[in-house]
């Protein structure tokens, strides 16, 4: 079979960066974007799946073994997310498919968003802005918003001290915060106190910032016990994945006043958000966009373009996911 002059890249999204990526690289790659309302099988029947060697996806698309089986010639899988829990990595390893992800590209932006959510929920920023824009508010503002919580100098527990967690720690240290953490393993070159139990971490901290990857071990790592240990004056921020928190329990605890408040960028069943949260002034809600800025979008386009070029000219990938570590 003759080699295609312009290699095909199957795009399974939706992808935030695609609108910027496509015009930049359409002369080098033939991007195939199936209509999400029709079946992938149907689309592939028209596009010679055996000629598709590269797949670009977002965290929204579940790249299961089933999907991979539709692409017998696939050798490269790129995801625009840092996380890879939506990909059957075991199947990729079995098939010899190289996988690359976002690596640390989003870390600063996600860390910024984590601190933004933490400042907002402790200082009632969104609640106060909403209050001012509401006509005919009866109470004088100072009475409504005087009882916010100080952030400087507080004890912050970081759940997951990876690339994002370290950036969060660095930022909060400049506020004089005292950092501790929980992670799968204690980190060698880190001086922050390590807690092997998230409950113990929550007991000693004023706020938890959840930044870890979602996998079998971390599912619902923030449960009722942890939330209760954090306590009435405690705050929780989640910029990882919705599944890291037992959402039903969190909502119950918020309704019962067992916790001070929460800043959430992610939810268990996006884009659905428990409607009980809409009545609360002590939660800040964000539509899974902690990573998404003008700069990170451009960086992601360059990373994807660079990796596609590298793959098709047999050069090493950037941010390659090491599949031999997969269980």
């Amino acid at each position: 079979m003759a080699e295609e002059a312009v290699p095909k890249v199957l795009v399974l999204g939706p992808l935030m960066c695609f609108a910027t990526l496509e015009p930049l690289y359409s002369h080098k790659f033939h991007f195939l974007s199936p209509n999400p309302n029709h079946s992938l099988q149907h689309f592939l029947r028209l596009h010679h799946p055996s000629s598709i060697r590269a797949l670009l996806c977002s965290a929204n698309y579940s790249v299961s073994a089933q999907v991979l089986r539709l692409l017998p010639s696939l050798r490269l899988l790129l995801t625009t997310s840092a996380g890879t829990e939506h990909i059957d990595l075991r199947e990729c390893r079995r098939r010899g498919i190289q996988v690359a992800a976002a690596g640390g590209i989003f870390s600063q932006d996600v860390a910024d968003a984590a601190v933004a959510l933490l400042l907002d929920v402790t200082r009632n920023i969104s609640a106060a802005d909403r209050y001012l824009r509401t006509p005919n508010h009866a109470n004088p503002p100072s009475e409504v918003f005087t009882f916010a919580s100080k952030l400087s100098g507080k004890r912050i527990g970081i759940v997951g001290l990876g690339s994002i967690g370290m950036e969060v720690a660095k930022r909060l240290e400049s506020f004089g915060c005292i950092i501790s953490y929980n992670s799968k393993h204690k980190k060698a070159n880190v001086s922050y106190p390590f807690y092997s139990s998230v409950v113990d971490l929550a007991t000693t901290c004023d706020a938890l910032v959840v930044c870890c990857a979602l996998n079998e071990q971390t599912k619902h790592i923030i449960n009722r016990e942890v939330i209760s240990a954090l306590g009435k004056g405690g705050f929780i921020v989640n910029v990882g994945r919705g599944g890291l928190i037992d959402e039903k329990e969190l909502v119950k605890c918020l309704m019962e006043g067992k916790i001070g408040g929460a800043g959430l960028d992610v939810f268990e069943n996006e884009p659905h958000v428990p409607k009980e949260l809409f009545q609360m002034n002590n939660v800040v809600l964000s539509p899974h966009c902690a990573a998404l800025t003008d700069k990170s979008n451009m960086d992601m386009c360059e990373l994807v373009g660079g990796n596609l070029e590298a793959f098709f000219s047999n050069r090493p990938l950037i941010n390659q996911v090491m599949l031999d570590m997969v269980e």
Partner: protein
Amino acid sequence: MGSIGVLLVGRVFPYLEQELDKRYKLFRLWDYPQKAQLLSQHAASIRAVVGHAGAGADADLIDELPKLEIVSSFSVGVDMIDLEKCKAKGIRVTNTPDVLTDEVADLAIGLTLALLRRICECDRYVRSGKWKKGDYKLTTKFSGKTVGIVGLGRIGQAIAKRAEGFNCSICYYSRTEKRDSNYKYYPSVVELASNCDILVVACPLTEETHHIINREVINALGPKGFLINIGRGKHVDEAELVSALQEGRLGGAGLDVFEDEPAVPEELFGLENVVLLPHVGSATLETRTDMADLVLGNLEAHFLGKPLLTPLV
């Protein structure tokens, strides 16, 4: 000390009001429909005035209180107090520095992040159900931006330290260059605005700094620039700010203070590139309690003939 008359010129943190009431003969200005009534009845017994960011002691009030010895402000800014008049009459003035520095600096960063990352807008987006129809758009990265600070005092330096945690470069304008600072100095606010992404107002309000943020500065900051005001409303020519935002000449603004509080220009309510707060820079339980204790401590020291804790005059 229960017979010492203290005049409270505006509503403050309940704990402060309760303690003043316990320790002194407290007069609340708002209890009297006419100030003249209060003065004719009680002026002779008032030896102290307690003010806050929005109300203090102007020349008239000072003249009307012949027994006034001390003005203790529940704020760090004292632009509502006629300091020259107090100096001339030997009246002491105290404020609440240091205890609120971290709090205000935290809020300056909080406002900046909320503005650039559209945190309030995103919260509105989710609550209105719009997320079910589509994702929110890209926002502006904060890390690595250049932050320009007007006034490198305690609060300005605390803001700089926090911004550095986000890999920001810091530059500043001050009345005089700070020799021991590593930050880049600009001799004018316009030059500072031309060379930074985010301009933060953190200086005291005086005659010189009134409307220090004017049309020229706002235009220099530009459509990709952002203004953050945690100083006083009168630092900014508010009418110019509003028209710049409406016309797209300024990227956005995060405002904790306004020229005529509690009034906020209605034109701002419909804008997604502003964040509006009701003057809450120091408004946490911990900090307001610390500020209150400083006011009470200063008054007590004065009436016991001891050195004041945080005197300005």
